């Protein structure tokens, strides 16, 4: 009887811990037949999305390790990556050299923005996510000021195809034809007709290995300690504030690189929007993969990309086939992106409270036994 109850409890716990991925599995299970897409098409699309988004989402893992929650401030890194891309487009640097140069340009900008973000987040302990979200909006204003008014006026931009007709400011879209798929096409193989960009997967695998290695380093262990309990970490001699700033800096720099990889796959930079969308979609994908505000791993990244983007792929066509309007699917996916973040945050809080209550009950029971 006790064993059955334990099994039931385990099942309930499993369901509670994986509510979001299960929800998405159900959505996809309904959406795939409705969309009418072939398995081959879906697999090739998923591979494209994995290549495009994984690097960005992996960049979110380190701040979670340091207990700073989901780094909505990754948009800062994305902005830095975009600035790097604008410069290489202006200078006409193409291919892999162009991508690497864009990454080099983005690095100091990302580091500075990450440091700034980390400093502010240290002043807002316990409210890191909402603070980083707002920092993203604030920095977007600065980005717009620089790109829309500074570039071409103060910062020299030679290319007329980049500058707005008024003579300053960058156009709404920047054509990245020079670096388009340069990494993806570096080592492309086909399996059953499905293109697999091996070079990009190798880069993502290297980043995953870096994250796994990093967790075992002194700094990684310090971050874990800070994430578990800041006061205990401080008492153990860990420079808590510095460690937290470092986690955000690393995340921001990686987000910058991720944005460059993302945009080389797409081939077009939406100057004023790309970075804003990417923060929300990356966070949502990680949460869909079963991550929480306090715990995330590489498995969550890949599961999240697969489930979240599978929903992205099938929902417009499912919406069109179901109601006759593809636009419904577009609304659906934006709605789901915000919705999944909300559900995850609510579930996380509920779980935290439940665990606290359970811990209280078991402590009370233990005290009763002792008495």
């Amino acid at each position, binding site marked *: 009887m006790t064993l059955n109850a334990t099994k039931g409890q385990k099942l309930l716990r499993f369901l509670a811990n994986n509510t979001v991925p299960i929800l998405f599995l159900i959505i996809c299970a309904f959406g795939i037949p409705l969309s009418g897409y072939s398995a081959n098409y879906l697999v090739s699309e998923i591979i494209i999305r994995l290549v495009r988004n994984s690097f960005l989402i992996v960049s979110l893992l380190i701040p979670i390790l340091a207990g700073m929650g989901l780094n909505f401030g990754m948009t800062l890194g994305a902005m830095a990556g975009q600035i790097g891309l604008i410069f290489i487009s202006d200078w006409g640097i193409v291919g*892999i050299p162009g991508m690497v140069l864009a990454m080099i340009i983005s690095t100091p900008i990302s580091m500075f923005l990450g440091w700034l973000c980390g400093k502010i987040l240290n002043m807002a302990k316990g409210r890191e996510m909402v603070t980083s979200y707002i920092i993203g909006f604030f920095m977007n204003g600065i980005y717009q000021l620089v790109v829309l008014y500074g570039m071409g006026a103060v910062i020299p931009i030679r290319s007329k195809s980049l500058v707005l007709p008024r003579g300053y400011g960058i156009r*709404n879209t920047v054509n990245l034809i020079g670096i388009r798929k340069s990494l993806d096409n570096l080592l492309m193989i086909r399996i059953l007709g499905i293109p697999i960009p091996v070079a990009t997967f190798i880069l993502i695998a290297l980043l995953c290995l870096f994250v796994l290695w990093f967790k075992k380093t002194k700094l990684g262990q310090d971050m874990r300690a800070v994430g578990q309990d800041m006061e205990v970490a401080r008492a153990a001699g860990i420079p808590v504030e510095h460690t937290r700033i470092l986690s955000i800096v690393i995340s921001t720099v990686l987000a910058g690189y991720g944005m460059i990889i993302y945009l080389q796959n797409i081939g077009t930079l939406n100057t004023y929007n790309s970075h804003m969308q990417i923060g929300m979609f990356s966070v949502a994908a990680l949460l869909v993969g079963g991550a929480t505000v306090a715990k995330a791993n590489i498995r969550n990244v890949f599961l999240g990309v697969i489930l979240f983007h599978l929903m992205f792929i099938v929902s417009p066509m499912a919406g069109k086939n179901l109601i006759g309007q593809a636009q419904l699917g577009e609304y659906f996916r934006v709605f789901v992106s915000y919705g999944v973040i909300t559900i995850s945050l609510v579930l996380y809080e509920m779980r935290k409270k439940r665990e606290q209550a359970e811990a209280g009950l078991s402590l009370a029971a233990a005290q009763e036994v002792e008495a």
Partner: protein
Amino acid sequence: MKMGRTLLIRLSAVLVILILSVVLFFIGKSHTVLVDNKTVTVEGREIAPLKLVEVSVSKQGALELTPRDRDKFEVTGQKHRVTVTYTDDAWNERTITRSFTVPLMQDMVMVLVPALVAHPEGDQALWLENYEAPTYAVTMSESDEVVTDDMAGLITGI
């Protein structure tokens, strides 16, 4: 002492990255090489275009040009080789290969094929000239709106 060593390592790393950036800039810089088969005037002498000529630049596929034709090659880096294959008046096939250097910040250069054929050993300046694309070719319409709202795409679709 340790502080000084750390600083030295950091400065060295920055220096290596700066050198790498410069190298990337040089090897990744793209240029457009136009190949032009039109009547040209060199040193006061008018040179007629070739009836049919095959031109290739830096191991890229050859292009065939007839009189008044102009085509282009996209290349990266500064140093390149142009190969021109044509049939002379005695029906002998001739091939001219010349190396040339594109100025670093020059986006477009134009190889004047008739001038190159007339002066195969001549100075690069005789058959290669810098080219600036006309303004209308690189700018888009005046009504290029800046959209800064990420929901704008959805709202206009209603």
